[in-house]
């Protein structure tokens, strides 16, 4: 019965958030963008709302969080009661505070990593497809070699060599993910570079940079955006895995992935607290993919 009720409540909340966001975006949007938001599906507006909330929370973390990030504020594993609304963890740190700071660290790092991987991977991939020949061979075989090494072991290796800081973490995961993006971008671009409009642009004497930016990238956008949504979620996993092994985000910095692990024992006592950071990851993942789906739909020119 409770299950049913909470499901219904969840759906109602979903619709309320979705429709209000859509209405708000529609009102706020500039005149020529209005139709875009009017026809937006409710899933997409819900996704946008969730992402906005996460961004706000991440930006305003010190203001919102009731306690300090690494501050020990009480006994360990306190139950859900004021002033610790979501209880405390095994060291006695406030769970709500850690969740709020986790948004900043985990989402921030994951986003920076994915964005970097995509910028590097797609530009190199398209460049290789466009120029072909030796450049393509060198780049592609190099990427093959990198991909032959299991991702987790390779990142462990690199992090041990370069030391663990947030910057090296971002660079290492981005470098490894860029190889996957490279492969996708290259194969998509190979289908595009044989089109007559690329030949026409080449004959016009356009530079490679302009060919990549104006002629190929807009046409390769759809699969890349879809891949972005997926890869963003995988980066969460990579960061969590590395944190678990002690090479990711270092304690006491809050990170959703390690929060799940640290508090996992609570599950055996029927306490759902460890599921909260996991749920935060899941919700964001779903939200990002809702928005990505909507963008894909628009990019593919399907109107429904």
């Amino acid at each position: 019965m409770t299950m049913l009720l909470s499901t219904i409540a969840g759906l109602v909340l979903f619709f309320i958030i979705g429709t209000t966001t859509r209405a708000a975006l529609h009102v706020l949007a500039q005149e020529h963008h209005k139709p875009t938001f009017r026809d937006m599906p409710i899933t997409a507006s819900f996704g946008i709302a969730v992402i906005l909330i996460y961004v706000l929370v991440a930006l305003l973390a010190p203001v919102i969080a009731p306690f300090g990030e690494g501050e020990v504020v009480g006994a360990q594993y306190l139950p859900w009661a004021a002033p610790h609304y979501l209880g405390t963890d095994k060291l006695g740190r406030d769970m709500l505070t850690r969740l709020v700071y986790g948004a900043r660290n985990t989402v921030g790092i994951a986003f920076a990593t994915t964005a970097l991987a995509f910028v590097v991977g797609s530009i190199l991939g398209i460049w290789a497809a466009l120029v072909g020949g030796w450049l393509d061979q060198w780049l592609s075989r190099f990427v093959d070699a990198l991909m032959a090494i299991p991702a987790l072991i390779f990142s462990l290796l690199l992090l041990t060599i370069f030391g663990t800081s947030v910057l090296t973490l971002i660079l290492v995961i981005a470098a490894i993910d860029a190889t996957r993006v490279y492969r996708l971008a290259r194969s998509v671009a190979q289908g595009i570079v044989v089109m007559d409009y690329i030949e026409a642009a080449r004959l016009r004497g356009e530079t490679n940079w302009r060919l990549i930016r104006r002629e190929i990238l807009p046409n390769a956008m759809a699969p890349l955006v879809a891949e972005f949504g997926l890869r963003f979620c995988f980066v969460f996993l990579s960061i969590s895995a590395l944190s678990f092994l002690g090479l990711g985000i270092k304690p006491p910095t809050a990170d959703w992935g390690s929060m799940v692990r640290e508090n996992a024992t609570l599950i055996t006592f029927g306490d759902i607290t460890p599921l909260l950071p996991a749920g935060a990851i899941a919700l964001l993942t779903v939200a990002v993919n809702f928005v990505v789906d909507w963008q894909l739909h628009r990019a593919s020119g399907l109107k429904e």
Partner: protein
Amino acid sequence: MEKTPLLSITGLRIEGRSGDAWHEIVKGVDLTLHRGEVLGLIGESGAGKSTLGLAAMGFARDGCRISGGSIDFDGIDLRAVSEADRRALRGKRIAYVAQSAAASFNPAHRLIDQYCEGPVVHGVMPREKAEADAVELYRRMRLPEADEIGFRYPHQVSGGQLQRAMTAMAMSCRPDLIIFDEPTTALDVTTQIEVLAAIRDIVRQFGTAAIYITHDLAVVAQMADRIKVLLRGNEVEEGDTRAMLAAPREEYTRSLWAVRSFARAEQPPATGTPVVSVRGVTAGYGAVDVLKDVSFDIHARRTVAVVGESGSGKSTTARVITGLLPPRTGDVLFNGKALPPSFKARSRDELRQCQMIYQMADTALNPKLRLRELIGRPAEMYLGLNGRALETRIRDLLSLIELEPDTYIDRLPSELSGGQKQRIGIARALAAEPQMIICDEVTSALDQIVQEGILKLLDRLQCELNLAYMFITHDLATVKSIADEVVVMQHGVVVERGPKAEIFAAPKQDYTNLLLSSVPEMDPDWLNRLLSARGGHA
């Protein structure tokens, strides 16, 4: 005595979906077809020909639905019976031959396997018998080496042979009705003749009824007993082939008939330095020479048509001129000066002088760019225009190609019709203010009425802007209307060249003669005469 018709369609309405709205594609068409009769369906693209053809099988494409009227096939109401019953009919009693056999055959299976599938699945005959039957039908379709051709894969036979193999396959269950959807549109004229003759013979031999869909009037005149003209989902008129060719009743039909009347005014022989001069060019890919010692000139204000079958080296010649394929020997002179062989070594101004218009406007225009950028980019790049000057230039160009600037300037290519896209291709070429334009099969993907519009536009622009055209085509009717000089190519060699009038009046080479005589004419007896003149050879 009126026999009961094999197929009778009354008041057929078919709707297609765009977004949430349904709009009618076929708006209440009646159609009757008797056993052994061939009905030609003609009209421009978007007239609903193919949709109507498929509806004769009780089928509607994805995103389409049959919304009204009745389809009665030999006493069976195709709209009322179950999908399973309809499937039992398809292939067995009603067959379909698609426009592109190359795209319709499964490339992973041999021809004979695909032939046998229908008869075996429908339980008409066992596999061994079907195989023997296939060879028999391949022979009747006059396919070479009928005994073994079925054991090849689709990519191992030519386009014309594939189209005949597909017709044989449609015949495999001896259906009562075959729907031919533009079966020869993608073929060369010389190949088209063979396929037309084979199709016509086999339909007659088996007394099969057929619906023949095409936009080529001359073809339909050879094939059909009756012709039905469609326009935007409505029937314009229907009548006996001969009667209708002789005296069309409706204005629209007359305009279809008159479409090839456009002919460019005769030009005096050109003098002076040619704009482009191809000198002894030999070029190819890998070890193979596709072009062998090709030479010809193109003068300002003149159109040189390069004709030949596919694979004759027409497009390769264009690639040599544009610098995409540097020649092994020989060179390309521009206003008397040799051009660097590769486009990479050419200066921006040399690139500007020679522009190209492509066959498929769909792939020649970047689908993600708005017309403003598509047309504006060459002007911005070559002429250094920007801001207001660029905007004015784009608007002028749009007016020049007869598109209203305010309506079109911010559209995407997908928001244009086929003919309009081709006009944008022309505008993009003009934006560079070139001296010479290469037109690579620019009209072959278009309807005849749209083709005529494009040809007239090109002709007008040539007079206004002093352009030289190199017009690559396999369509000799187009050559007749627009060319000044003709270059005939075969197997990478220039077989014959000269002024249009000379070539058409007295071709010196056998090949030119073959090519010229293969162009279908409106006369319904043309194919018969031609076949008997060629001594039974198809």
